[in-house]
């Protein structure tokens, strides 16, 4: 153990009108005096009552739903489950895209002592069966007919499930199935239960202890079956405390929710932090409309995965290329000035007056409009996490006046371990450890964390739980990284992904892969070379940018496979690979590569729900391509 920071004791402070533990990491973790997320939820609903909690589009028009709606529906839903026989400590699964009912279910389940577990809508029927069986769910929420069909397909294997609650009735009016009920019926059951047992809901909330398990989050598991990470009420509250310190939300902030709520990142940002910070959450209509919704909502802060930031950037780049020569010139000059200013800001140096004046002009002429066009004109900060992001991309966002900050966390530490701050930012690092999160680097380079945010363990899997904690109770993140002298954390790779070449050299593939991913033309890459003579790589190209490249250079192609097969595209990627090779020692250089010529979707097992390639699956599925290179 070479370096570590440890939390120090303290009291309560007020941040943007919310009173939180002044020094996070100390028991008890409190937000406005509440030590559980459910009691905080109750408090907020009482406080904010008629204020808008959520907005959702109905037939193309934004509709508002109040905190009162949030409370009543969560209450009916929770009591409905109670009436159907849900006991405290039991898991309920939710299979739906993001929508307000997802949150109603999440809070409703937790308030009556249940454990909420999300299932990705891209999961197959057999994956659903595994998750239902592993979590022992007796109740399942499904969004619509499409998701319902997944359950019906595996109904016989999932006999433990007693009731399936359907959120959206469209196309299911003729459905007659003893296990299926519609959400409205469940609300009705809950309402009737409430009439007979007044105050039960509030009593259940009061019964909830910080150490009670609140959520089960299945980790995508690049090897083996997914494991359910148990997060307690205290974990969630302590994430809110760290969030309040590191990512302050202001009263009345607007947010956009669009990443899967099954993922800890979106869950924190769109469910728990808004409860703590009194923000309004707007739900994107669908993954395809995110950019339009972003413009409509113009959120105060926006957290996304690097892929999304990359997409926005590519769109702007294409637009700029197709602009008039004068427009293009202005745009380039504006970006140049923006970058100059960004370099001062990022170096935490005062911006010279000249640069400031220049920037003010270009901001007025170009950048302000650009931000408005992107829906980033009111954005105080952008967040990125869950995958590495190119430093150049972050600089570009700073240049156009959007403070994009990279953070780091994982399900097992409640999603928040370290983050860059607007005035304390080191590009390329994932920031300093969050307040309240102890961080150290083990002898083998593994990052380990300690704090109230460390999860309880894996659901019904003591063996894996034991492997995940050190003897002195620190969490093994499985990530390899460094803490620099200023206390900034940098991630270099995954511990178990380390490749040992036939020559005996240890290589962290993630380091090379992230460099490759920073190219606009490469969306993901997997480096191969375990027990081999040299390193090779499978590459997934970025469809849009490569297509654009091919078109601009008159490279004929028809479908995706022919695009990947064209010599010009292979040469392009070869150039990118060689560029990356320069940054590495000889043994760490990629000697050969192949392009994955199928357009993968989130439904494919090679991809995680956040569109990252899964090493083990890719290696298995494309074994032929790999062998070709050796």
């Amino acid at each position, binding site marked *: 153990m070479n370096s570590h920071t440890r939390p120090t004791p303290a009291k309560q402070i007020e941040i943007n009108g919310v009173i939180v533990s002044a020094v996070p990491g100390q028991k008890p973790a409190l937000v406005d005096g509440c030590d559980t997320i459910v009691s905080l939820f109750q408090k907020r609903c009482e406080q904010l009552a008629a204020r808008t909690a959520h907005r959702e589009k109905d037939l193309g028009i934004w509709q508002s739903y109040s905190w009162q709606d949030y409370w009543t529906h969560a209450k009916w839903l929770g009591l409905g489950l109670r009436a159907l026989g849900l006991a405290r400590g039991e898991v309920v699964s939710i299979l739906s895209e993001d929508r307000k009912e997802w949150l109603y279910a999440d809070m409703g389940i937790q308030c009556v002592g249940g454990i909420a577990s999300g299932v990705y809508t891209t999961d197959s029927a057999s994956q659903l069966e595994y998750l239902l069986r592993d979590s022992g769910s007796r109740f399942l929420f499904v969004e619509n007919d499409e998701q319902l069909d997944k359950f019906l*397909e595996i109904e016989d294997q999932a006999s433990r499930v007693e009731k399936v609650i359907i959120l959206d009735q469209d196309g299911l009016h003729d459905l007659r199935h003893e296990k299926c009920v519609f959400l409205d019926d469940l609300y009705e059951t809950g309402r009737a239960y409430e009439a007979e047992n007044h105050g039960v809901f509030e009593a259940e909330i009061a019964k909830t202890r910080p150490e009670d398990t609140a959520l089960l989050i299945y980790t995508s598991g690049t090897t083996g079956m997914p494991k359910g990470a148990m997060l307690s009420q205290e974990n969630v509250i302590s994430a809110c405390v760290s969030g309040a310190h590191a990512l302050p939300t202001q009263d009345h902030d607007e947010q956009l929710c669009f990443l899967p709520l099954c993922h800890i990142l979106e869950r924190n940002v769109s469910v728990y932090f808004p409860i703590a910070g009194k923000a309004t959450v707007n739900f994107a209509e669908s993954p395809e409309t995110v950019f339009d919704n972003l413009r409509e909502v113009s959120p105060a802060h926006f957290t996304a995965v690097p892929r999304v930031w990359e997409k926005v950037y590519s769109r702007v780049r294409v637009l700029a290329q197709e602009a008039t020569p004068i427009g293009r010139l202005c745009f380039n000059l504006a970006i140049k000035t923006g970058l100059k200013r960004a370099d001062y800001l990022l170096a935490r140096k005062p911006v010279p007056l000249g640069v400031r004046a220049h920037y003010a002009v270009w901001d007025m002429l170009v950048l302000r409009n650009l931000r408005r066009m992107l829906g980033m004109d009111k954005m105080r900060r952008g967040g990125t996490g869950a995958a590495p992001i190119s430093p150049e991309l972050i600089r570009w966002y700073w240049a156009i006046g959007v403070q994009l900050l990279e953070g780091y966390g994982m399900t097992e530490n409640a999603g928040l371990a370290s983050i860059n701050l607007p005035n304390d930012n080191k590009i390329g690092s994932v920031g300093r450890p969050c307040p309240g999160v102890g961080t150290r680097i083990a002898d083998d380079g593994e990052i380990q964390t300690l704090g109230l945010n460390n999860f309880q363990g894996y659901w019904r899997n003591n063996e894996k739980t034991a492997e995940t904690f050190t003897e002195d109770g620190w969490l093994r993140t499985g990530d390899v990284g460094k803490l620099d002298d200023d206390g900034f954390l940098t991630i270099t790779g995954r511990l178990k992904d380390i490749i040992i070449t036939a020559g005996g050299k240890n290589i962290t593939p993630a380091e090379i892969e992230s460099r490759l991913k920073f190219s606009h033309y490469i969306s993901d890459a997997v480096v191969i070379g375990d027990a081999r003579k040299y390193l090779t790589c499978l590459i997934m190209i970025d469809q849009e940018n490569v297509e654009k490249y091919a078109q601009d250079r*008159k490279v004929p192609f028809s479908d995706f496979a022919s695009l990947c097969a064209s010599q010009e595209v292979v040469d392009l990627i070869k150039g990118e690979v060689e560029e990356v090779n320069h940054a590495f020692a000889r043994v760490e250089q990629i000697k050969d590569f192949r392009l994955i010529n199928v*357009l993968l979707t989130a439904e494919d097992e090679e991809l995680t729900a956040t569109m990252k390639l899964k090493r083990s699956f890719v290696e298995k599925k494309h074994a032929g391509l790999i062998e070709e290179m050796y």
Partner: protein
Amino acid sequence: MGETVLDIQNIESFYGPIMAIRGVSLKVEQGQVVTVLGANGAGKSTLLKTISGIMDPEKGQILFEGREIQGMEPHKVVGRGIVHVPEGREVFPLLTVEENLTLGAYTRSDKAEIEKDRQMVFDYFPILAERRHQEAGTLSGGQQQMLAIGRGLMLRPKIMLLDEPSLGLSPLLVQEIFAILKRLNKEEGVTMMLVEQNARVALELADMGYVMEVGRIVMDDTSERLMESEDIKAFYLGHQEDGARGERRWKRKKTWR
């Protein structure tokens, strides 16, 4: 078969500011029938119009027998031997069947050969011979379609571009017309590029197929293999995958592989 007659490379066409074709490349070989499938607004007709010179592409090349023809005036394209049988038939309603056919051979001067071709058209479409003196506007939809094809044949084209010949016709007539197209291809060796929404008949006729979606080709293969593809089955051939409930409203996601 073998020699490439038509070679389209990275065509981009616009309607005003709207990009209708976003970089399409395809090839048609001598004696082949190539079909382009796609829903409304995919850019299929635009593609044909770009080939025949009615529209000019912003980018890309169209090579016909090895020479560039993109951006050429339509009548010069016709002169090269490319015939466009437009969507919705577009026969001259006030002219007789015979006059319509004669107009098809407008650019030719070899009287005897023209007469031979007219006879060939009448052999393939006997109904047109029967109605030769009737005004084209009084023909039924199917007969007008036959006339439009016949008029195209009168040029003795090197390639025929057919824009939805099945449009608005009864299933029986569609079968009939496609059977004749098949014979024309087999017996006369007419090379065809066929744009269709009726994927089943088109794939039965064609050797190769391309699938277009929003201005881009998403899949291309031989007709047999396309007919085996799960996506084509679900989205173009109307195969219903029955879910566990027996009725299903939602569709699988397209992957085009």
